[in-house]
């Protein structure tokens, strides 16, 4: 920039007269030393402030007042043992990130263990890295060896309690333990509870939006893990705080006082979070006859191959996803399979699929994408649109197509270095046009300057969909957000979209709500992607398939309703952290 020296520096020297006058005054012994000390203390910072705040990258994370406040209280007023029980979507992860950052700054975090539900482990890892510059190893990383081999670990709680790892986890003295979805340990008779109960640690931060799942005992169990003795014995707790018919609370004020020593609960209405509106436009298109034929062939192949060899699940799942993304993505995978593996069964089937791919000259989704971006070019600031796809081959083809139509395009994928990624986002902001991205974008990057997002294909993991949307629809987005979903009729995508995602109102979830639904699902031992795939290949007829997906949707809806109910119940119980009128 040219203006560096155009901004003036004006130095004013305050008068030293008073100081010089004091030269002739006789001070008592030691009073000058005290003046020096007082001046030095006046310039000093209170030691109990969050000193790492200034180190944070403002572009990576925008801190809200209630989050800073919670981190401060957890660290300094609760002596590093706290239950963070904000309502969903208020950024409990951010609060823990700040706490860990501060501990790192003060060098009190030699070993940190974060236990989360399996689905959320990678997300935690990404958020802590992107937003707070904290590097953790996740138990799903290749480099993960064991719980005694790293100092900063994020792991699923079930991995930690597994026979293979349990002893290693328990043998170690951890400086910090973080437990996400702490209601997982509400039941004292489970292995999970037992693990946390036996773990050795100096500081602990437990997170949950719903500290009470069923009854007040849940709260007793979770709190007692953090602060043994705060509530006395289980029996005393019951007698003291729950009346004889077990339905209402007694001695509420005291319960509240004690909870205040260990629990922080912010409510949405007390914060200044305000999201703009989100409009969802789901567009399903008729595939061309050739595309339909290809889809059928691939689906048949996947079904057949899977019934013979379930070990190929991952790659078969990949084919099933690619066929609705783009023929070119599918082609790459099939060719790789054909030419890398000489003893492939069904090679002839794959060959014939390749022939079908070659016959396709119009890719419906790509044609229809042009409608959306053209509309955006005319109506949106600098025509900015983000198009997400799961596959690099699809990404490349879209980029080429859009560029040939005269659009300014930007590519973003996992192959870029982080400085390149930053540059790409910057270019996109400055030049406008279309950013075509893989899900590598989902990690912690903020694109609030764009408000149109296209899901060219849909991940079967709703968390990923939420992460995509979260890039643009987040705190700081000033405009309404438009999400376009593209799907081909009568394909798995249409099922996932129509029967599942819309049923759980995925696209209208506020940030964070989904994780409570998913972690409930996970608690019942289900992986979303697997479930979709299993249902897809197991169905004997279209009617079967439809019924299967409907059943899954009912499950989901139930989980959602339960999650909602629980949240409502907890809100009621903790209202303003005021537990209501005491009936004693």
């Amino acid at each position, binding site marked *: 920039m040219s203006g560096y020296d*155009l901004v003036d520096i004006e130095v004013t*020297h305050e008068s030293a007269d008073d100081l010089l006058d004091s030269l002739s005054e006789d001070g*008592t012994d030691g*009073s*000058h030393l005290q003046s020096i000390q007082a001046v030095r203390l006046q310039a000093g910072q209170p030691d109990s402030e969050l000193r790492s705040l200034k180190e944070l990258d403002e572009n990576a994370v925008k801190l809200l007042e209630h989050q800073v406040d919670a981190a401060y209280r957890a660290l300094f007023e609760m002596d590093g043992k706290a239950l963070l029980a904000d309502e969903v979507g208020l950024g409990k992860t951010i609060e823990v990130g700040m706490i860990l950052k501060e501990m790192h700054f003060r060098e009190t975090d030699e070993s940190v263990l974060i236990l989360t539900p399996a689905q959320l482990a990678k997300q935690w890892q990404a958020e802590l890295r992107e937003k707070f510059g904290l590097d953790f190893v996740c138990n799903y990383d290749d480099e993960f060896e064991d719980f005694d081999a790293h100092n900063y670990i994020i792991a699923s709680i079930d991995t930690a309690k597994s026979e293979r790892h349990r002893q290693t986890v328990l043998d170690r003295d951890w400086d910090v333990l973080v437990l996400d979805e702490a209601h997982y340990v509400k039941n004292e008779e489970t292995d999970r509870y037992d693990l946390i109960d036996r773990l050795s640690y100096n500081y602990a931060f437990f997170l949950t939006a719903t500290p009470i799942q069923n009854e007040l005992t849940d709260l007793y169990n979770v709190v007692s893990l953090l602060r043994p003795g705060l509530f006395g014995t289980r029996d005393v707790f019951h007698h003291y705080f729950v009346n004889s018919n077990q339905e209402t609370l007694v001695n509420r004020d005291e319960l509240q006082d004690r909870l205040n020593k260990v629990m922080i609960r912010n409510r949405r209405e007390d914060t200044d979070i305000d999201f703009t509106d989100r409009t969802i436009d789901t567009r399903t298109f008729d595939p061309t006859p050739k595309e339909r034929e290809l889809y059928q062939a691939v689906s048949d192949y996947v079904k057949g191959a899977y019934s013979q060899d379930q070990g190929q699940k991952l790659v078969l799942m990949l084919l099933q996803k690619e066929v609705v993304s783009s023929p070119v993505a599918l082609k790459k995978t099939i060719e790789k399979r054909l030419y890398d593996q000489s003893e492939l069964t069904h090679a002839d089937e794959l060959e014939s699929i390749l022939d079908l791919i070659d016959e396709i000259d119009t890719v419906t989704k790509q044609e229809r994408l042009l409608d959306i971006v053209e509309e955006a070019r005319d109506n949106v600031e600098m025509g900015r649109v983000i198009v997400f796809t799961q596959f690099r081959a699809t990404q490349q083809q879209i980029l080429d197509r859009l560029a040939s139509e005269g659009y300014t395009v930007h590519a973003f994928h996992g192959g870029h270095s982080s400085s390149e990624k930053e540059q790409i986002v910057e270019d996109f902001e400055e030049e406008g046009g279309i950013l075509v991205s893989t899900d590598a974008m989902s990690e912690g990057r903020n694109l609030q300057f764009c408000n149109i997002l296209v899901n060219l294909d849909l991940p079967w993991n709703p968390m990923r969909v939420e992460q995509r949307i979260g890039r643009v629809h987040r705190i700081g987005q000033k405009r309404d957000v438009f999400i376009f979903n593209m799907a081909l009729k009568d394909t798995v995508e249409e099922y996932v979209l129509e029967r599942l995602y819309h049923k759980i109102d995925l696209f209208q979830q506020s940030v964070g709500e989904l994780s409570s639904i998913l972690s409930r699902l996970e608690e019942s031992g289900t992986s979303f992607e697997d479930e979709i795939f299993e249902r897809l290949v197991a169905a004997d007829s279209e009617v079967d398939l439809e019924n299967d997906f409907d059943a899954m949707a009912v499950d989901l809806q139930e989980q959602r309703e339960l999650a909602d109910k629980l949240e409502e119940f907890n809100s009621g119980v903790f209202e303003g952290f005021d537990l209501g009128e005491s009936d004693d």
Partner: protein
Amino acid sequence: MTDASISVTQSVVEQFTERYLRSIGCSIERSDDRWLVSVPDDTDTEITHGRHTLIRGEGTPDDDDDRTKRLHPESAFFQQLLREAGERSPSGKLSIESESDIESPEWIQNGAVEVQSAQFTPYYDRTAIVVLFRVGIETVSEYQQELLRAVAVDTRSEESLPKLAETFLDTTTVESETATSGTVQLTKTDVRPLLETARELLLESVQGQLDDIHREASRAADSEVEEYRQMQQQRIQELQEEHSNLSSKINDLSEKINTGDEDSRVQALRERKELKSEYEELDETLNELQERRDSGFPNRQREIRERHSLDVQVTPLTLTEVEYERGEIDFELIDGSIHQTVTLGYGSGIGVSDTVRCSSCERELTERNPLQTVSDGLKCQSCIKER
């Protein structure tokens, strides 16, 4: 340059408060989390005379009244105490004793040779002043930053003594109780030129920080200028559009005037007249805006850059006359079986003042190029490596 501020922990707060209150004549009875403080009537202080209760740690402000105060890093009472203590005796005298620990230079500490003994022989008494400066830096785009820095200047040579400033900070922590002695010998006339030198040294030492903030302020100003330029450009485009719309409307009317009947001609003439004056007005605005754009919006630029300018305020807060000694030091060095004594210029509180060079290559001995051997002269690490 080292930050001269001291972190304010609860224990530091209590240590300082207790010592200060006792030094001005108060008595303190301590019990658990409360102190009962008696302030005698003849005490020279702003604290109300009589008995007070100090409660240690944080609590609700309601607890504060005339007689009950909270004592913690941010409590009003403690802040009042600091103000009072800071202003009580801003100038004074301090001695750096020659017995204080002798520190060998980094080129010996980092080297391969051990120090067997060190003997300091003082020859002269010297005087320096150490000034604590508060530097306040303010811009519109940044929060105000405050730095506290110590600068030490020899009173005779006016040379900068950074090492002495560090020693000064080490000897004036809250832990130290008796570091000052005697009354100041220097007069106002002596101090004025020294203070000038200290100010210059101070500005040199914070230049790096000022540059950083300056750069940020410039960037903020530039982007504001750019934003303004874009906004005006957009306005120009809108005006141009309007301009050409009007122009074509006027043309249409002219056409009408040439071809229409009497009534519509009169009507069109009237309308054309109105449009023309509107057109001229627009034309003027547009020209003016374009001219301002072509010259780079100088007024606006000046206004933005002025607003972003850095305001640096330098305030001397305390001034300390420091007595120290200069002389020579003998380091007896051992390198295996070889003993060698090196004599160097030295000052209490300022350390070794001589620059020492390698006897073989003449390179200066430094922290990074330390002494490697003393057999056959003092040889540096680089020489030994190159061998």
